């Protein structure tokens, strides 16, 4: 789960990390009021969206007086920001962070992530602050330092010192830097984070050490012990279909194409997306109905897939293990009844209770539903039928 920068900073502040003074604003007036209260010569107006690359996309403005703050706030609120990470459709700005400007002397990078290989949390630091860490890793990997953390002992003081020396902080700020590292680690562990990133971490001309930007991501599996984090969820940042699917305990990712698929199991669902593309189709989504499907869940999956005009065909690809083919088939028939099918649906069923499942579909005689005896044939057929459907719709329009 993602949260906004201003929310991340509030959490980090509660763990003792030094962040700039500031507050969230939802209107230009509120922005002006916060800026007045801050009273600093420079105020930063930052668009709050769940995507990086905001600075380059014009989502971060420096204001030198209250009128500027108001002007920039009006400009940004409601604007759709297209950054490297948002995709071409961009994201609408609904919130701003109004923050005291800092007198930056030097920028650094600091983060905590999970290292899959060693099964440990790792602290990463670099002198190359403000750049994307992936770029640094690509171009100058020798500039990234790592400290692997024993989960029982925690982050040791010597590790924070070693990191601070390697990052070439000047002696005057070493104590502040090592304290910030420890506080950031405590936040990472305390809130079940999957990422805690400060980029840039800055040292000011006054020798303050400040987390100028902050990004926290959370382990979805750990959210049950953090209702305070769950409460920060901003649904307007999430794809409405992905949101609806999550509520129905379906795993859905929108991929933008027009050939939808409904599959059981994450691996087979990914592979189904791939095979649609392999035969020339544009996959609309990844959708895993999970291992314990019910008729209602299948019907809901169809509702989500057909909820807009995006989709021109649906490929149902099921290998019944724990899932039973007859339940899936009954779900498709139910979906045809209560949701209605407006595009061709090609169904490949194999595995547990396959004969029963196929019989249910044969008996129901839903005109949109076509059975495919083999997965390969099914994938080819749905790509063909979706293209036909799209052409038909264009001709009618």
């Amino acid at each position, binding site marked *: 789960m993602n949260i906004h920068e201003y929310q991340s900073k509030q959490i980090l502040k509660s763990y003792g990390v030094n962040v700039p003074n500031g507050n969230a604003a939802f209107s230009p007036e509120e922005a002006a009021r916060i800026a007045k209260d801050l009273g600093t010569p420079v105020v930063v107006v930052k668009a709050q969206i769940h995507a990086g690359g905001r600075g380059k996309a014009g989502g971060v403005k420096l204001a030198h007086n209250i009128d500027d703050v108001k002007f920039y706030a009006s400009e940004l609120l409601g604007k759709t920001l297209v950054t490297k990470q948002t995709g071409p459709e961009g994201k609408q700005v609904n919130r701003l962070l109004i923050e005291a400007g800092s007198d930056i002397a030097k920028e650094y990078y600091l983060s905590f992530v999970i290292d*899959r290989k060693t099964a440990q949390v790792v602290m990463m630091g670099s002198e190359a602050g403000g750049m994307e860490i992936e770029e640094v890793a690509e171009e100058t990997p020798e500039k990234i330092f790592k400290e692997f953390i024993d989960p029982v002992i925690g982050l040791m003081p010597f590790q924070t010192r070693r990191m601070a020396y390697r990052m070439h902080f000047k002696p005057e700020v070493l104590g502040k830097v090592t304290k910030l590292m420890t506080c950031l680690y405590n936040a990472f562990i305390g809130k079940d984070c999957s990422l805690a990133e400060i980029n840039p971490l800055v040292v000011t001309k006054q020798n303050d050490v400040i987390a100028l930007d902050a990004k926290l991501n959370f382990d979805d599996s750990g959210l049950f012990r953090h209702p305070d984090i769950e409460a920060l969820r901003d649904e307007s940042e999430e794809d409405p279909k992905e949101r609806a699917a999550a509520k129905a305990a379906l795993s859905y990712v929108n991929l933008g194409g027009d050939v939808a698929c409904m599959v059981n*199991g*994450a691996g087979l669902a990914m592979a189904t*997306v791939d095979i649609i593309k392999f035969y020339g189709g544009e996959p609309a989504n*990844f959708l*895993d109905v999970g291992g314990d499907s019910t008729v209602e869940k299948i019907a809901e999956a169809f509702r989500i897939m057909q909820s807009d005009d995006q989709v021109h065909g649906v490929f149902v690809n099921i*290998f019944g293990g724990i899932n039973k083919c007859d339940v899936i088939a009954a779900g498709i028939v139910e979906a045809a009844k209560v949701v209605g099918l407006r595009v061709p649906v090609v169904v490949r069923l*194999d595995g547990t209770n396959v004969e029963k499942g196929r019989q249910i579909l044969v008996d129901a005689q839903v005109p949109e539903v076509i059975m495919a005896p083999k997965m390969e044939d099914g994938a080819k057929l749905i790509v063909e039928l979706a293209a036909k459907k799209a052409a038909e719709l264009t001709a009618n329009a």
Partner: protein
Amino acid sequence: MGIFVGKNSKVVVQGITGKQATFHTKVMLEYGTNVVAGVTPGKAGEKVLGQVPVFNTVQDAVDETGANVSVIYVPARFAADSICEGVDAGLDLIVCITEHIPVLDMIRVRRFMQGKNTKLIGPNCPGILTVDECRLGLIPTYIHKKGHVGVVSRSGTLTYEVTYQLTMAGIGQTTAVGIGGDPIKGIDFIEVLDAFNQDDDTLAVMLIGEIGGTAEEEAAAWVKANMKKPVIGFISGRQAPPGKRMGHAGAIISGGKGTAADKIRALNDAGIEVADTVAHMGETAVQVLKKAGLYEQCHTC
């Protein structure tokens, strides 16, 4: 034969009185698995399915029955503790089915396991099945036929799919291992490949990977250096967008790392044939076996 589990495995089911666990215990027993005990705290003295004795702790089950292998069907918030309990009781192998265990819990589990002898399969996995001998987890039994190909996969349904395709093509199996879809887990491809390499019954291995992490790349390097038997591959997630979690917690391309293209390249570089689509896994296996002169021997069903 096969690997990790077989006729001689004595199995304890952790969380046996839960609905899913009881159902699968029944399937395991019907398959001939030697289920000797179950554990649910507070339910010692009960019998599940009229025959499997329940104990309060794994240690009690081990002391009373000599159990050496466990399978865990316990809700996510308690599962890390259950794994540690099994490790502490000195089990040889633990299979954890549970999905959605917090990552930080698994990091602590892995630390707890250091220096101890227990192997962990999973979590978030379909389990393991040695054909006609032993089944731990969720894998449907009827799709398997005895033979000489080992299966290892990060995905549950793809384990079933590939096994089914092999069986339909007349290629029987030794053992199928689902190592699970989580970022922090127990054994990885290499440990399983190593075991298949040493198993006389296994003549070839089917390896099913997916996006996220670098386990497939490491497996490819290991195969190139050590594997004496042909390996056939498949990778799902070619079309996955970066930064998006594709169902499995571990199936995510992050920082440009973990793409399907990288993995396929690494496997190909190690001389491993990779099926072009999920529909061609069985077919690709047949071709590779024919090329290696193993088809006749592997055509067992």
